């Protein structure tokens, strides 16, 4: 009952507002997702997981606290060429977040780590025609790829430190012998 009264009130208020203007303004009140976003949402590319423990896999896990979205982006990097050979993502969030991460995976496939780290969220937002209210979703995708690259590099860093230790131990063992 309250709700119907309030909608009646707003109806009256809007009537008084339009009485002042000369002619009624017709505008599209419904806002819908862009068709590219819907395409990515209905047919997302590269959904899945890569084994986290593999030494050539970097995992980026980020979240948007304002809306409660979570995004996981995993890249498999070829150590010799430093290029991304495989990429998988999993996003639990709104359509724009899923589309942004799906598009990001398409984009970085085959790129080098430096190039991938340079992708800006504005590129994604432009490609998917994201409205201003959904710009933070593209930001999330940019964060995800950066986080994945950072994770991979730290793994490599740890691995190479391990290698150096092993070589040192071997050489010291040989020296003793």
């Amino acid at each position, binding site marked *: 009952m309250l709700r119907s009264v309030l909608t009646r009130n707003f109806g009256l208020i809007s009537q008084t507002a339009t009485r002042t203007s000369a002619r009624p303004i017709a505008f599209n009140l419904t806002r819908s997702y862009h068709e590219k976003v819907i395409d990515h949402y209905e047919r997302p590319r590269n959904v899945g997981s890569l084994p986290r423990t593999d030494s050539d896999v970097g995992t980026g896990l980020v979240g*948007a606290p*304002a809306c409660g979205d979570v995004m*996981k982006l995993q890249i498999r990097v070829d150590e010799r060429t430093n290029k991304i050979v495989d990429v998988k993502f999993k996003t*639990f*969030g709104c359509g724009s977040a899923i589309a942004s991460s799906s598009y990001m995976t398409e984009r970085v496939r085959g790129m080098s780590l430096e190039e991938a780290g340079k992708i800006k969220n504005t590129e994604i937002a432009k490609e998917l025609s994201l409205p201003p209210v959904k710009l933070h979703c593209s930001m999330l995708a940019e964060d995800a790829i950066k986080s994945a690259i950072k994770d991979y590099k730290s793994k490599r860093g740890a691995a190479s430190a391990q290698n150096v230790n092993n070589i040192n131990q071997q050489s010291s063992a040989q020296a003793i012998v």
Partner: protein
Amino acid sequence: MFRFIIKSFAFQKLRNNIIPIPKRTVTSFSSLFIGYNIQYNNIQNIFSKTILRTRQNNVCSKNKYLLSRYNHDIPRVHRNCWKCNSEIDYLSIHCNRKDCGVIQNVFPNDVTYFEILGVGKKVNGQLQPTYDIDSDQLRKNFLLLQQRVHPDSYSTKEDRQEYNYASQQSSLINKAYQVLRDPLSRAKYMLKLNNISISESESLQDQELLMEILDVREQLEEATNENNVKVIKNESEDKINNILAELSQAFSSNDFCMAKESTVKLQYWYNIRNATIDWQPGKRIEIYH
């Protein structure tokens, strides 16, 4: 039954303010700035800078933020009735004069939803926001207020002004009730009152929380029947109850850093709980904001 009547009279007395407000003499320079967000406190300054920095980790200052804006000694300005011009109290809905008694316009933004609905902790004659509120009391106050301001009672008056004021009052009271009723929106509102907002440009780096949420989400994706979903729903309910206790503890000790972290967690678990409620076999889980 009688207790209810007495309680309601007491509440109405408060709203029409028969309890006198002590006169405050303006002694400090900062108290002249009524309603402005002037930094009279360095910690508040640091906090607003922290929020403005984007793309930062979700690490807030570990200083316990002791002074809330509403603890400060802000003198409340009296206002005048629009019809008879007599002085009425800040919080009054109707004019105090017996022969006038018309409904007033909505009060300025300085007033919190807690004061509007008469819940919270009474400190120096003002109602301070608290996280634990009596939801029965909240509902009773809401219904009482709506009885007094509902526009239906003002639709036949010749003076359209009264009807408009009643509509605005009614909308505000509805909004206040909706915000205070739900624990998540109440937490966010209380953070906002202390100038802490969870902005959209913030990025969450808490790997533990994200892993947990991801796991539960994947379980939910793989669920094949109602029973699996029920297990997850119960888990989310338990988690939510724990977080509510954390939030209550954080707000009562003014630890807004902890409160913000807990609010973020609560948001995530709320989404999961909603997903379990909406779950249908074979249907894709949609997420709405």
